[in-house]
């Protein structure tokens, strides 16, 4: 793809101007020599002027092609300030400017200049002429490309205005009359006033100018404050309220709208926090109610185990009851935990702690659990400490859940990689393992393993509540860390990152 960068366009413009200046300078020099009856001296200059013409034409062709586009494939035409001027007005201005410059240029012939002085004057004029020409020509090219050559004209606008007025309701027709009065009658009156009382006119103009500048400044200042407030709201500062008395006109309406958005958002956030809290409370209460009968189930299953049951089937049934009631217990505990954490209902005791020490400590807790599954833990830790700001107990719970996950889902007799690294001002912890069963979820489907109850496999009969990663993620977020899961085939990677304190 060929890009039309600003730099390329600018150099094409410069080339074009140089070639134009060269051409006209050569033409004038030829004229100078012919007037002094030395045509043989003019030969070389005629060659040069032709070269200048060709070069200028090539540059112009490139600019014509590139005008309004950012690259070859760019179909969107971008316009600039000049393009906003109505085409007919622009043409009038262009003709006027060209006429003025040509007028001066024609005079040059009859002035008695030395050759050097003549060349400087001719160069300057042709440079100006070319600048005006390029501005006009390229703008027209862009208009043609963007198909607005005719729409972007004063005559078209007036035509549309009248067409609109005839087709619309009277109210706006009246309004347009007032606008016309404002746009035509008042300037005309002012013009007549200025014409007859020139000094008064200047005073009025100065006053009007000051008023205009004041209004303009006030308006941009108010806009700036509205923008600031909007940015604050976007950043989550929902207590920013704009004082409406300090705003005027349109800005007042804008400020009011910003205030409304803020109020609405703040209400929605409060509502959602309350809902999450209520949900957490509900889950806690329900879990209390579940725990009481569950206690009896667990106790009596245990008592049943102690009865000397001969029947092999009965023993098997009891073993199943035992396992399932324990799982139910784990599920209720995890559920309460997860809902509490996701509603932010956790007391954090933030301290400076050593991530490396924590990993050693956790390693000690899990060492035998992993050994029984013949999982080899390969740890790569920095020699010194890596200090972060966190609640040690909650961070332990988060990482513990990752280790439990490994114990549950890693393939036996494989290696588990645990790593802590300081990358710049970030402490990164990662744990990688090979999963026993293929992970049946697709990231592109928008599923997220760290969502509550989302699990890497379809069946729900294996141990695990589907809450471990959700708990770990939410705890990490609460402590200001980041949490990332990556699944690459059977390789499962969880990465936690904290700012180094």
């Amino acid at each position, binding site marked *: 793809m060929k890009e039309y960068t600003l730099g390329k366009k600018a150099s094409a413009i410069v080339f074009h101007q140089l070639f134009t200046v060269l051409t006209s300078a050569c033409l004038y020099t030829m004229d100078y020599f012919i007037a002094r009856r030395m045509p043989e001296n003019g030969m070389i200059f005629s060659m040069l002027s032709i070269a200048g013409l060709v070069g200028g034409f090539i540059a112009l062709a490139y600019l014509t092609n590139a005008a309004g586009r950012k690259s070859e494939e760019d179909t969107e035409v971008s316009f600039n300030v000049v393009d906003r001027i109505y085409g007919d007005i622009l043409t009038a201005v262009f003709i006027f400017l060209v006429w003025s410059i040509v007028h001066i240029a024609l005079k040059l012939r009859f002035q008695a200049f030395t050759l050097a002085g003549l060349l400087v004057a001719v160069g300057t004029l042709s440079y100006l002429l070319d600048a005006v020409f390029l501005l006009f020509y390229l703008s027209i090219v862009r208009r043609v490309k963007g198909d607005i050559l005719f729409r972007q004209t004063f005559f078209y606008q007036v035509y549309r205005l009248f067409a609109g007025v005839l087709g619309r309701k009277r109210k706006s027709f009246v309004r347009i009359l007032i606008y016309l009065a404002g746009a035509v009658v008042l300037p005309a009156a002012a013009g007549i006033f200025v014409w007859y009382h020139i000094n008064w006119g200047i005073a009025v103009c100065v006053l009007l100018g000051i008023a205009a500048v004041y209004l303009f400044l006030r308006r941009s200042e108010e806009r700036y404050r509205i923008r600031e407030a909007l940015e604050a709201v976007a950043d989550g500062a929902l207590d920013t309220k704009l004082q409406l008395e300090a705003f005027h006109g349109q800005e007042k309406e804008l400020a009011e709208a910003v205030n409304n958005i803020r109020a609405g958002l703040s209400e929605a956030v409060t509502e959602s926090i309350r809902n999450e809290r209520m949900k957490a409370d509900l889950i806690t209460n329900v879990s209390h109610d579940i725990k009481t009968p569950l206690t*009896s189930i667990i106790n009596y299953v245990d008592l049943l185990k102690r009865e000397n049951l001969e029947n092999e089937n009965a023993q098997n049934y009891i073993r199943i009851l035992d396992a399932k009631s324990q799982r139910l*217990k784990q599920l209720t505990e995890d559920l309460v935990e997860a809902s509490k954490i996701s509603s932010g209902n956790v*007391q954090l005791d933030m*301290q400076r702690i050593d*991530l490396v020490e924590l990993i*050693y400590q956790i390693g000690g807790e899990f060492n*035998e659990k992993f050994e029984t599954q013949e999982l080899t833990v390969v740890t790569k830790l920095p020699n010194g400490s890596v200090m972060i700001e966190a609640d*040690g107990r909650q961070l332990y719970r988060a990482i513990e859940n990752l280790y439990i996950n490994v114990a549950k889902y890693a393939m036996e007799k494989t290696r588990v990689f645990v790593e802590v690294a300081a990358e710049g001002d970030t402490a990164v912890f990662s744990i990688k393992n090979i999963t026993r069963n293929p992970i049946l979820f697709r990231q592109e489907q928008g599923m997220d393993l760290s969502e509550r109850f989302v699990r890497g496999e379809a069946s729900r009969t294996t141990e695990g509540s589907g809450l471990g990663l959700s708990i770990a993620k939410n705890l990490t977020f609460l402590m200001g860390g980041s949490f990332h899961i990556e699944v690459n085939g059977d390789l499962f990677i969880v990465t936690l990152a904290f700012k180094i304190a």
Partner: protein
Amino acid sequence: MTVLVCDDDKEIVEAIEIYLKQEGYEIKKAYDGEQAIALLKQGGIDLMIIDVMMPKLDGIRATLQAREESSIPIIILSAKTEDSDKILGLNVGADDYVTKPFNPLELVARVKSQLRRYTSLSSSFEKEGQLYEAGGLVIDDDRKMVTVDGEEVKLTPIEYNILLLLMKNKGKVFSISQIYENIWNEEAIGADNTVSVHIRHIREKIEINPREPRYLKVVWGVGYKIENREEG
């Protein structure tokens, strides 16, 4: 020994009764706080297990009232698992807090432990030699003996030395490398899980529930310490 069991769920009371009777305890049963206080006032009770959420008089208020009457060990048994619930329970005068659903064996172990401490402390046994104490955990460094609530615990020499280091500096947190340097007398270069594995083994031996240690606390990301708490 008589244990008062109070819970509004009859089946739970009966299950506890079965377990404790197997261990040779006498049982008295109550199904709300008022009954429990009434039975307590009659006397002859050595320990009380009480539920929190009960009709008439809840476990927290019952515990408060019971403390006016006697100093017997009280174990709160509750479905409420929040830290704040546990702190509240221990603050109103309970000696231990067990959450439902509980492991029956763990409950029995806690009952035994509370009773041993209660009786051994009241019969002021002779203290001789160099003793280090933290609650029910006692190290007799002259005889190289560790007891928890009066019951001896067998530790390996390394485990013993680690525990002794922590007991001599109650309340102080030791990092893994500090423990390593103190016990092995060499610099800890590229430490590994050795120390933390030993610590877990010690916890498994001296704690009823190693996941919720009473004595050897883990300060995550910092180190290990023996809780320096006053008798109570």
